[in-house]
């Protein structure tokens, strides 16, 4: 409604032609157009340039070949391991963030209006999530290093022969990534829960259901699409993060498992992600293979764009979609 009404100043009635405005207004008009169009130009330039370089350097086989640690990086191997690394880290991050975010959102919307204590605690939790949302990922990464290098948590990575805990593994990176995914997941779930009209809850209560059963049977199904949107937002934040992986994933070119127990050894192991692969092959890393960096960056960009499309599809028809970039 407001979208149509705001534009009424332009579509309805006689409008004054810009020719009759003061020059400062004409300047502002030109500046606004310039701002909008240059954004489009920059985005087009980025996409086209990355596409051009990607097509130039990406061989389809690269996605399925394992990287070779040869002295001459430019000619050898692909980036299967970094791609798998990205997938594993995202999976671990979402697996940890999802229950936490949904539980918090449910608690705050459904139970956080009780006595003074629960209201105060709800404020604390909301502020905590806001602080986490505002924390730079490099600080989260450093915190992760401090935590996972504790001797207590040595089983979650490995211990070198001199006694120093390595502190870097898939579980370490995944746990910190969950902090990245948590705020968007929480916000999406909370908004979805708040949007459920009160009469649905009241009908359930009238039928004698407890609050928790109402949540499970009535509210959860109706916020499924919100949770899906939030999850995809969280995944796209995780996929795009470089700092956490650089510091917490051990920087080995190939995925290297640690120990013998099947899934656990992957979690304890080290590897790399698409983002660190791009970084390491760029002139900021070892500088030896910008071709590989372009190829991997192209795949990364396509992945992020695909996630964007999914988010848009899931959020179709909702007003808050544009603000979901945050």
């Amino acid at each position, binding site marked *: 409604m407001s979208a149509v009404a705001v534009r009424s100043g332009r579509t309805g009635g006689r409008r004054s032609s810009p020719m009759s405005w003061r020059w400062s207004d004409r300047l502002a008009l030109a500046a606004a157009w310039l701002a909008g169009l240059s954004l489009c130009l920059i985005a087009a330039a980025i996409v086209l340039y990355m596409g051009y370089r990607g097509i130039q350097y990406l061989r389809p086989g690269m996605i399925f070949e394992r990287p070779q640690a040869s002295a001459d990086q430019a000619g050898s191997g692909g980036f299967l391991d970094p791609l798998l690394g990205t997938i594993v880290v995202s999976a671990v991050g979402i697996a940890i963030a999802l229950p936490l975010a949904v539980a918090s959102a449910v608690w705050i919307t459904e139970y956080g209006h009780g006595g003074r204590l629960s209201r105060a605690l709800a404020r604390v939790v909301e502020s905590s999530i806001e602080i986490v949302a*505002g924390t730079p990922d490099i600080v989260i990464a450093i915190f992760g290093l401090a935590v996972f290098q504790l001797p207590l948590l040595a089983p979650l990575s490995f211990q070198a022969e001199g006694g120093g805990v390595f502190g870097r593994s898939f579980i370490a990176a995944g746990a910190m990534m969950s902090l990245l995914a948590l705020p968007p997941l929480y916000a999406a779930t909370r908004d979805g829960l708040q949007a459920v009209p009160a009469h649905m809850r009241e009908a359930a209560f009238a039928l004698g259901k407890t609050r928790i059963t109402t949540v*499970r049977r009535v509210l959860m199904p109706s916020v499924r699409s919100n949770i899906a949107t939030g999850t995809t937002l969280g995944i796209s934040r995780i996929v795009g993060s470089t700092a956490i992986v650089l510091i917490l994933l051990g920087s080995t070119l190939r995925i290297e498992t640690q120990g013998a127990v099947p899934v656990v050894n992957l979690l304890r192991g080290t590897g790399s992600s698409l983002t660190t692969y791009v970084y390491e092959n760029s002139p900021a890393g070892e500088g030896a293979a910008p071709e590989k960096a372009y190829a991997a960056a192209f795949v990364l960009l396509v992945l992020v764009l695909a996630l964007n499309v999914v988010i848009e599809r899931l959020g179709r028809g909702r007003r808050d979609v544009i603000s979901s970039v945050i």
Partner: protein
Amino acid sequence: MLERLKRPWPDHRAERALGAVSLLLGVVIVAMIAFVAVRSWPIFQHNGLRWLGGGGDFEAEIARMNAATAHPTAADYQLRAWPLLYGTLLSTAIAVALGIAIAVLASVFIVELAPRRLSRVVIPVVRLLASVPSVIYGLIGILVLVPFVGNHLVSEGDRRSVLGVVQLTGAGLAPTVAILTVMITPIMIALVCEALEAVPPSWKEGAVALGLNPLRAVRAVTLKAIRPAIVAAAVLATARALGEAVMIQMVSGGKTFAPNLDHGVPVFLFEPLRTLASAILDFREGIGSPSLKAAVYSFSLLLLLSAFVLSVGGYLVKLPLRRHQARA
């Protein structure tokens, strides 16, 4: 036994369980501040608050920290990190200032001025720019922008004017600020657009009815009404800019140098710099040395505290502005 777990829980148990899980997040925040603060304590212990000031030779101090043994002396903790703070503040301030201007203009364009079909194109464009990973911005920066600045914008005269002081390689303030602005503007546009659309159309129509042209009406009425949103956008963008490590590390030149306005304007923009976040990334491998580890954690503490201050400060600044805000 599985049967008992699957039966629906009584409400009070569920409430407590969910509450405990939620409070876990509060615990994480407290743990984060505690861990980082404890590990950065040695720097405060040996320098007091003077470590935030200038006067030392930062690169020499870092070299000394790297060479220090496992039991560092007091002198090994000596640190004067002002160039880092200056680099951080400078790059962030310029990028946010530019970004707000562009974001407001672009949002007015999207919501008020552009034909609807064009708006429908620009909105996904904004979302796209916001979701491009920072390493890709950094890649384009270091492979395209930095050589361009170094080979075509920096003249020999510029290089000669700072001979012996610093070398201009193209990586420095200019590419950093340019890319940083592009990175933070989409976030601001999203917030400002949302706020613009929430302004009741009657406010603007009233101004137009009084004889103002549409753009002037926007300037006089709508922009004032969305001031809290602009503040919120600026705060969010500042937090993002402060925390950007990877992209800045790739294009800022990696030299701890405080760009000096005395060198004249084009040269000032070409000088290299280092920010707190990029320094953490640069020195991440050296944390085997205890004194360097404390230094890195103290940079992190600064970033953490500033993120915290921004959230609180943004909230406080918005309070008085709320009185004039459009209530949808």
